[in-house]
C-alpha cells in the first residue's frame, strides 16, 4: 500500500512534514506520493471535519432515500451522477435494500433543502420517490466525537 495512503486512511491528521518523519521518507517523496494518489483519483482532496452546531449560520442537513428507475445499459449510474452534481448534495451512495440511492444534502435553511427536494430532485425524470429525514443533532462526525467532554485521561507524567 502507498505509505501516504495508509497514513491518510488512518485519519491521523498529520502535516506532510510529520508524514515524512513517520514514514521515514523525505517531504518531497511524500508530496510525490500525494500527487500520484491525486492523479489516480484515490486522493480526492482535503476537507475539514467541523461541528457547526454552535454556529448561527449552521447548515440544515438531511438524508434522503431515493427510488429511481434503472436504465438499460447504464443501470443507476447516469441518474446517480446527475443527482450528485447538485451543489446541495454532499454524498451520494447506491444502496442495497428498500431504496436505491442514499444522498446527504445540506442547505442554509429548511426551506432551501425542502425546495431542492420538491423542485429539483423529485422532478428529475426517473426519480420515482423520495423520503427525506432531517438531521436533528450530530453525535459523531467523520470519526470525531461531538459533545462528549474531552476529559484528560489522567495518565501520569512519569510511570515505571
Amino acid at each position, binding site marked *: 500500500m502507498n505509505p501516504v495512503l495508509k497514513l491518510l486512511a488512518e485519519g*491521523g491528521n*498529520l502535516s506532510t512534514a*510529520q508524514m515524512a*518523519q*513517520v*514514514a*521515514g521518507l523525505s517531504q518531497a517523496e511524500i508530496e510525490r506520493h500525494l500527487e500520484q494518489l491525486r492523479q489516480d483519483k484515490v486522493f480526492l482532496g482535503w476537507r475539514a471535519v467541523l461541528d457547526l452546531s454552535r454556529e448561527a449560520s449552521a447548515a440544515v442537513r438531511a438524508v434522503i432515500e431515493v427510488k429511481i428507475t434503472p436504465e438499460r445499459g447504464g443501470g443507476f449510474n447516469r441518474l446517480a451522477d446527475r443527482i450528485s452534481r447538485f451543489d446541495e448534495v454532499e454524498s451520494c451512495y447506491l444502496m442495497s435494500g428498500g431504496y436505491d440511492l442514499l444522498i446527504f444534502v445540506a442547505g442554509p435553511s429548511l426551506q432551501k433543502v425542502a425546495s431542492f427536494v420538491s423542485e429539483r430532485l423529485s422532478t428529475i425524470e426517473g426519480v420515482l420517490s423520495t423520503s427525506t429525514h432531517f438531521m436533528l443533532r450530530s453525535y459523531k462526525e467523520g470519526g470525531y466525537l461531538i459533545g462528549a467532554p474531552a476529559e484528560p*485521561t489522567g*495518565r*501520569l*507524567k*512519569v*510511570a*515505571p
Partner: protein
Amino acid sequence: MNDPKRYIARHVVDLPKSGIRDFFEIVAKMSDVISLGIGEPDFDTPWHIREAAIYALERGKTHYTSNLGLIELRRAISAYVAKHYQLAYRPESDVIVTVGVSEAIDLALRALVDPGDKVLFHEPCYVSYHPSVTLAHGQAIGVTTRAQDGFALNAEDIARAWEPGCKVLMMNLPCNPTGGTCDRERLEKIAKFAVEKDLIVLSDEIYSELVYEGGHVSIATFPGMKERTLFLHGFSKAFAMTGFRIGYACGPAELVEAMMKVHQYSMLCAPILAQEAALEALLRGEDDVLRMREQYQRRRDLIVRRLNEAGLACHLPRGAFYAFPSIAATGLSERDFAYGLLEAEKVAVVPGAAFGPSGRGFVRASFATGYTQLTEACDRIERYVQGLAAKRR
C-alpha cells in the same frame, strides 16, 4: 523517642525509593512538558472492552469471584496462551488471575522464596524486580545485559552471576526499559542452564505481543521448561488496559495452588469488572492489539532514527515501547542529561540508572505517545544535544 519510623520493618526501611519517584515529583509540577517517561500505552482502552465493563456493572456483576478468577476468563486465557505461545495449561488448575502482573510476580516470589534464597534477574529491568525479591526476603542477584547485544540476555552472563543457593531466575522479555528480547538460540542456552541448575523461571512476558521482528518465543516451550516455569502475563500493555489491573500466571498446578494460597489471604480475587473486561479483550480484542502494534512499530522506527541522527547511539529495540539510547556521547551522566533536557526543552525521559546499575549512561524514552508529540520531542532532544555539543567546543 516518639519517631513512628521505629515501627517500620527493617527490610522495608532499607528499600530504596524508586528512582523514578523524585524525578516524577519535578515533572508533575511543570506544565507543557512532553513526557516520554510514561510506561503505559497512550491509547485508551478500546471502547468495546470498556463497554463490556459497563455492561457487567449493569448486570450486577459486583461480587467476589473464585480465588483463581472467573472460570470463563481462565478458559479464554488458556485458549489464548495455547494459540499464541503453544503452551497448554488447564483452566481449572493451572491458571490464576491476579491484580496485574505485578501481583503475579509478588505471589510467585512469596510462594517460592524462603528467607535467603537467591533470585537471579537481568538488569536494567523493571523497577519493582529487585524490591519484590527483597520484600519476599530473598536475595536478588543482578545479571548484566548490554547495548551491543540489543540488551538480550545471555546464558553465559547468568552462569557468571550464578552462585550456590540460587533458586529462581526472573526474566522479562521483551524488557522494560531496554526493549531487549532473546532469539531462540539464546533462550535454548538459558533453558539448558536453568535445567542444569534446577532453577525455577518466572517469565514475565507482559510485552510479548509487542515484538516487531522475528516473533516471540516463550522460554516455557523448551524441553524440560514447562514444569519449571511460571508464565506471567496480563492485559495492560497489548490491550492498553493498565488501569484495569488484570494479570495472570500459568504453570504447574502445584505452584499455582501455592500462589493461590497467598492470593487468597491477601487479595482474595481480582476485581470482577476488570475480569469481565479482560474476557471481552480476549474474545474480541485481537485486532486492536495488531492495530496498536503497527503504530508502535512506526513510532519506534521514527524515534530510533531521530535519536541516532541527533547523536545519541540507540539500538533498535525488538520489542516493548521504549527506546533506550546511550547518552555517553554528551559527556553527561544520565541523571544530568535527563534533568538538563527537562529544564532546557521540557521533555521528560527517565534516567537509565532507575532501572539498575547497567542503565548508567542511558535514558529511557517511551514512544507510547502520539506522532505530533513524538516528532516535537525529537526536535527538542536534537536541539538540546546540539547545544551540549556546541558548549563543549
